[in-house]
Every structure is written in structure tokens, then in C-alpha cells.
């Protein structure tokens, strides 16, 4: 019963909000180019579906491509750091530099150096998404229970056994917490980079549709593209929350750990 309420409450709230919006716009006679009503946005979404869907697919590819690279890179580098503290000291500051530099400021440079726009967009999204995964995985690998480490030493476990059976599972909740953040960030990275690139043409994402529509004052289309972006972000968050629940369900403490955000 509680679960049903949990699901229904945000949906009902959203519906009420949309209804208020719809009637508010109609009642105040606000023109569609200033603030379109939800029904107008929905209509625009249907009319422009072909171009919006293609762009959506492109944005999804960049987002998940960057996220995949961030995961593999983050895990790999975190593992290397956990094996060699000297390498961690040498290279972690570089990761911090990548994280603190605003992506909007670096994107123009990347677009100059990288020929392919798609590759440049991937790189930008990767830079934004990479750090939370790296940082959280490094923390997770370091948080391994000391007594368990001693136990593995006592039984003379090999470094590979230690990583696979002890450190990786201990780091999993931390990694998943990082993944939840990075999922949203890689979408932001993909959109921001495309905004800077100002790309036009066939191989472009939702950000380009928003820019195009803004040049033509097609406000309903801007909102339609924006709605798709919001939907993507929410779906990514829900996907990783569910993944974290599935992987950590039997391990209650860890679920609580990531849910309270103590690892962030």
C-alpha cells in the first residue's frame, strides 16, 4: 500500500501542476511563444517527433557512451591507484583539475583540437562524468574492512583474489553512488558541449534542436526538447537507483549507506 502511494504521489503532483499550468496560460491569454501550454508542447512533440526522436537517440548515445567510458576509465584508474599510492598521489590532482574546470570553458578548446564533433562531445561528457566515479571508487576501495584485509593476508590471498573477493565488493556501494551522480552529469556534459559546439545537421542531439528552435522562436518545440531531456535525466536516475537496489538488496546497510548519501 505504501509503495503504491510512493509511486502515485509524484505522478498526481505532476498532473496537478500541468493542469494548473494549462488553465493558467489559457486564462491569462499568454501567447505560445512566451509560455506554451502543456497541450501545445505535447502537440509540438508529436508534430516534430521524427527530428526530435533522432536527436534524442543521438543525445542518448553520447550520454551513455560517455558514461560507459567514465565507468571503465574510473574503475581502471581507481584500481591502479589502490595498488599504487604513489601513482594516486601523482595523478589524482590531474583528475581534480579536470573536475573543477568548468566544461563550458574547456569545450571550445576541445572542439578545436578534436576533429570529429561526435568525439569532442563524447570527450566533454566524459570529463564531467568521470570524476564522481573515480573519486567514489577510490574511496570505496580504501574503505575495505581492516580485519578482513588481515584475514586475507593471513590466508595469503593473491592481489587478484584480494581485489576480486574483497576490495571490489566493498567498493560496490560507493561505485554505485558515484554512478547515480555521473549518470546525470554525463547528460549535462553532453548537452552543454553541444550547446557550445552549436552543431547543426543530421548527427546532432537535443541541444541543437533547442538552439535551432530558439533562433526561430519556436518556444513549444524548445519545451518539447527540454521535456525529453528531463525525462532522460529522470529515467537515468531511476535506472541506477533500481540497479543499486538489485545489487545491494540483500546487503541492507549498504543500501542505507548510499541512500543517505554518506558516501557523497
Amino acid at each position: 500500500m505504501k509503495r503504491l502511494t510512493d509511486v502515485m504521489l509524484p505522478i498526481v503532483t505532476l498532473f496537478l501542476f500541468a493542469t494548473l499550468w494549462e488553465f493558467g496560460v489559457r486564462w491569462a491569454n499568454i501567447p505560445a511563444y512566451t509560455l506554451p501550454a502543456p497541450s501545445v508542447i505535447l502537440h509540438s512533440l508529436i508534430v516534430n517527433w521524427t527530428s526530435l526522436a533522432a536527436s534524442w537517440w543521438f543525445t542518448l548515445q553520447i550520454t551513455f557512451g560517455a558514461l560507459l567510458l567514465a565507468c571503465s576509465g574510473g574503475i581502471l584508474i581507481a584500481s591502479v591507484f589502490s595498488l599504487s599510492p604513489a601513482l594516486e598521489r601523482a595523478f589524482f590532482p590531474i583528475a581534480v583539475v579536470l573536475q573543477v574546470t568548468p566544461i563550458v570553458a574547456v569545450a571550445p578548446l576541445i572542439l578545436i583540437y578534436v576533429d570529429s564533433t561526435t568525439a569532442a562531445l563524447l570527450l566533454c561528457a566524459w570529463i564531467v562524468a568521470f570524476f564522481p566515479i573515480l573519486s567514489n571508487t577510490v574511496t570505496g576501495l580504501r574503505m575495505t574492512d581492516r580485519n578482513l584485509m588481515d584475514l586475507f593476508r593471513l590466508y595469503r590471498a593473491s592481489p587478484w583474489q584480494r581485489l576480486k573477493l574483497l576490495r571490489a565488493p566493498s567498493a560496490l556501494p560507493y561505485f554505485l553512488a558515484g554512478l547515480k551522480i555521473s549518470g546525470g552529469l554525463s547528460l549535462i556534459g553532453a548537452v552543454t558541449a553541444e550547446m557550445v559546439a552549436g552543431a547543426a545537421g543530421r548527427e546532432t542531439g537535443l541541444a541543437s534542436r533547442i538552439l535551432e528552435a530558439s533562433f526561430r522562436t519556436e518556444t513549444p518545440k524548445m519545451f518539447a526538447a527540454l521535456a525529453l531531456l528531463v525525462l532522460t535525466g529522470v529515467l537515468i536516475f531511476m535506472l541506477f537507483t533500481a540497479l543499486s537496489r538489485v545489487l545491494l538488496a540483500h546487503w541492507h546497510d549498504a543500501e542505507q549507506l548510499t541512500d543517505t548519501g554518506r558516501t557523497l
Partner: protein
Amino acid sequence: MRHATAKPLVELSEVSKRFKSGTLALSDISLSVDAGEFVTLLGPSGCGKSTVLRMVAGLDSPSAGSVHAPALTTDKDSTAFVFQEATLMPWASVFDNVWLPLRLQGLSQRESKSRVFAALKSVGLEDFASSFPSQLSGGMRMRASITRALITDPKILLMDEPFGALDDFTRQKLNDDLLRWQQERAVATLFVTHNIAEAVFLSQRVLVMQARPGKIMHTLRINEPYPRTPAFRTSMTFLNYCRELSVALERAMLTETSAQ
């Protein structure tokens, strides 16, 4: 009890340990544990009991003196360690936790199955093989931890205040069971506690330690045959042993205070 010429299983000779911070944790500790013997280190917190265990396990090395123990030879699975907490892997089932030492030896799940189930049965956890640690009570978790320690048939079992966090009822039950398992397997045990009654009930020898620096102040031999029944706990002999240890412990603490 020991044969005059037999070499003890574990032997510490004039061992001292100074930490990097400069603190002298142990000073001139000499002790031995024979095969199958149950020896307890009793002392206040911070007297270096755990450090002694870690040295016997090869997890720490002495600053001076010599340590002879199975863990320091090539005899890889002869030492088992039970910590203050159950120290189970929370993401793994009870079966997987108990299987761990065998798994690290390279034994597959299939090869270990009958052994792990037999061990779980002997401690009364056979119905919980697929449960996760978070689903067990503190006492059951400790049982699983001891099962994991015994799965490799070690020669020496090192236990660092394993029942300190349990309630008295569970502690007593586990003391009875531990003694039974220890006797069945004839595994030498070096047990650390600050509970006098527990020390008397379990051990053949109790070594009383003082703190800062850790030193052995007194040795008490408990000349009671095994198996020890719960009736032993309420006997006059038991109370006399407890009294003697209590006095020794008080004296150890007094020496410590006057040394400061």
C-alpha cells in the same frame, strides 16, 4: 602435560614491541602454547593482548625477541583468527563466508560443499547457509565466524575477545560450544579476554597481563579436566580460581598505576 622434549607449537621469547609512535606496547613477553592446549591472555584494555595475537598470526613483527609460530613457516593454513567482531563479508552468504579460506586455497564451490555444510551443521547453522550476515543475530554471526576459522582444520586458533560484544546468556552458550569444538578438533587456542569467569571456564592456563608496557605478571594453571560442564561454573573451585585471578589482575593494575 607437555612432554619435556616436545617443542611448543607457539613460542614467544623475550618479545618487545615498540610502535612507530614510540609507545612501548610489549616488554619482554615470553610465552608458549602446546599443541591442543587452551591458553588465555587476561588483562585490561591496552595491555597489548591483541598485539601478541597479531604477532603469532604473522600480521605484526616484534621489535626485539623471537616469535616461533606456524603462521611464520610455510604452513599456510595452520593458523586461524577470530576477531572481536564477526568480520564476515556482508555481501556474501553464510556459505560463501565459511567457504572463503578454502576458496583462497583454490578449492571450488563444488569441492568445498560437503565440508562447508558439515561444518555449518556442527555449529547449528545448516539452515542458514544461504542467509546473509545482516539477517543473523550477533551470536549466530560469531558462530559463522568461528566456523570459517575452523574450516581449514588449523593447528592454532587465535581469538581476540570474540564474545565481548555479546550478552551474557549468548556468551555462556558460546563458551560451552567453543570448548566442545576445540576439544573435538584438539586445536591449540590462544584466547584473549578481559572477562575473568570466561578465562577460568575455558582455559588450561591463564596469563595475566598488565598494561603500559604489556607484561605477563602472573600465570595460573586451571587443573580441571575437560569436558567442563556448566556445573563447574557454580563450583567452589571455580570461584577460587576467579578470586585468584581477580587478585592478580588488581595487582597488575596497581603496578601499572605506580609505574605511571
